[in-house]
């Protein structure tokens, strides 16, 4: 039964690679789309995804980590904490299109940001927040209580203990959770479709600073969607190659977090 699941998967990935092969190259990533996006590369989309992911994580990670610190280190076992935990789980289960509606209503319209990189990143941040909270909480709770108690017994304050003992010992677990959300943020289409990503935007080849916070941008996930449904006469290889790059980025990032996790396991001090 398990084989029945793994084998078709390998076949699908293999097929994707096979169809994408003619178009795959390093240039594909750094070139600009040419000839109505039928040739050339995907640089603006790749860059846009990079921006969106970085900015959304810079926003979500601190908030998420601090929320988890609160839940694991400060909160008492009462009904209020129970509600917070419930909210985290529910936030994680909100459909991506509802996040898009929220982003549209709250960031694009209410906050007056208009359709922009910032609005899209904020929407992605709200989306990735709950999982960062959950995984950080787990990493924090893995640190044995005895560590904290030893520190308190020496008169160190609660926050100093957290900063000096708990966090350094759980940093890899925290990072794992954050890295995992990179792939989520890179792969989602619905939340960015209405909050700041467009069909086409001209940028300079290899220009790393092409987008400003209030600009609109392209993104890999959206690019795959438009190129497979709207641009005619595209040689098959191009959308398949875009899919492969997106998939590749996501899987690579995930592999990184898995490696990190194995590293923690083997180097743990307890």
């Amino acid at each position, binding site marked *: 039964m398990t084989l029945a699941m793994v084998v078709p998967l390998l076949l699908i990935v293999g097929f994707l690679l096979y169809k994408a092969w003619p178009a795959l190259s390093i240039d594909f990533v750094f070139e600009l*789309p040419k*000839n109505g996006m039928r040739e050339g590369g995907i640089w603006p989309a790749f860059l846009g995804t990079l921006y969106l992911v970085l900015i959304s994580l810079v926003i979500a990670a601190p908030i998420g980590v601090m929320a988890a610190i609160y839940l694991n280190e400060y909160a008492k076992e009462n009904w209020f904490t129970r509600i917070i935990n419930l909210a985290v789980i529910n936030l994680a289960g909100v459909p991506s299109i509802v996040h898009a509606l929220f982003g549209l209503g709250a960031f694009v319209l209410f906050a007056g940001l208009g*359709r922009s990189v910032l609005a899209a990143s904020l929407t992605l941040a709200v989306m990735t927040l709950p999982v960062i909270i959950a995984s950080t909480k787990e990493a924090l709770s893995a640190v044995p209580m005895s560590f904290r108690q030893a520190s308190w017994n020496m008169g160190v304050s609660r926050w100093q203990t957290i900063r*000096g003992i708990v966090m350094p010992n759980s940093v890899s677990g925290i990072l794992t959770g954050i890295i995992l959300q990179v792939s989520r943020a890179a792969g989602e289409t619905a939340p960015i479709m209405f909050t700041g990503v467009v069909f086409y935007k001209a940028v300079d080849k290899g*220009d790393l600073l092409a987008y400003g916070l209030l600009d609109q941008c392209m993104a890999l996930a959206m690019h795959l969607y438009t190129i497979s449904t709207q641009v005619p006469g595209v040689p098959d290889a191009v959308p398949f190659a875009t899919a492969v790059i997106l998939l590749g980025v996501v899987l690579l990032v995930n592999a990184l977090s898995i490696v990190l996790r194995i590293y923690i396991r083997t180097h743990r001090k307890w």
Partner: protein
Amino acid sequence: MTQVSLLKTTGLAILVSGLITVGCGKQGSTVSSEARSSENKKEIQNAGSDTMVNIAQAWAEAYGKANSTVDISVAGGGSGTGIAALINGTTDIANCSRAMKNIEKKKAKNTHGKDPQQYIMGLDALAVYVHKDNPLNEITIEQLGQIYGEDGSITKWSQLGIKPNDGHDEIIRISRQSNSGTYVYFKETVVPKGKEFKLGSLDLHGSKDVVEIIGNTPSAIGYSGMGYATDHVKMLKVSSKQGQVAYTPNIENVVNKTYPISRPLYMYTLGVPTGRVKTYIDWCLSDAGQKIIIDNGFIPAPKN
């Protein structure tokens, strides 16, 4: 501080300073302009019709090459989206494959005090596509109305006297989503007045989608811009009424108005455009821009 905390703080500091640089980049800094050409560019926002999205992108690309001080961003979403964006004030130019309705024009006037200005950028024939091996060659507007319209009576290929290759009799209707100008235009031309589209059609996202699916599905029928044809599909000849001549969608029949389902492609701006927007629209209407229209399978704007 432990080593790890130091690392984290440094990493965060790098990220934050990177963000600040990025955020301030667009506001104009004293960094040399050869290195960052994007900061001096002006932007034109262009949104709307999916039918036109590929020409719009081709124009943007070509214009960008000829004129590096202007950045044009192109968004699709359908003619309805473009008009909505124009009314909301979030786009400079709305691409539309249908005319703005009076209600929409009034809304724009009420919100911004300016009348929308209309430009005809080219012509498009809405082709009726079937699979290339489908025995059907021509069809009337009335039959299309019966196939696509609410309460229409034609649901099977046998009613048209046809047997598709894959043996399935049920006509699979491929349509577009309601934000599409193509959808609206087809409805107004083909579906009987006061009726809607029959439910149950596959409502696809883009003009290209439609043709792709039909190319793979012998028992499907659909409509899309004639510029989207591929080798796997066939365009039907269309006649206005039973017994009249059926015409193929091509440049000649559109220009002399014998092909019954053709329409102008529009660009709308709020009020008369000035400055770089006007320059851009003029360029698209020039020979260079109109050549791109032909290359993409559409018909140049009538010269008048």
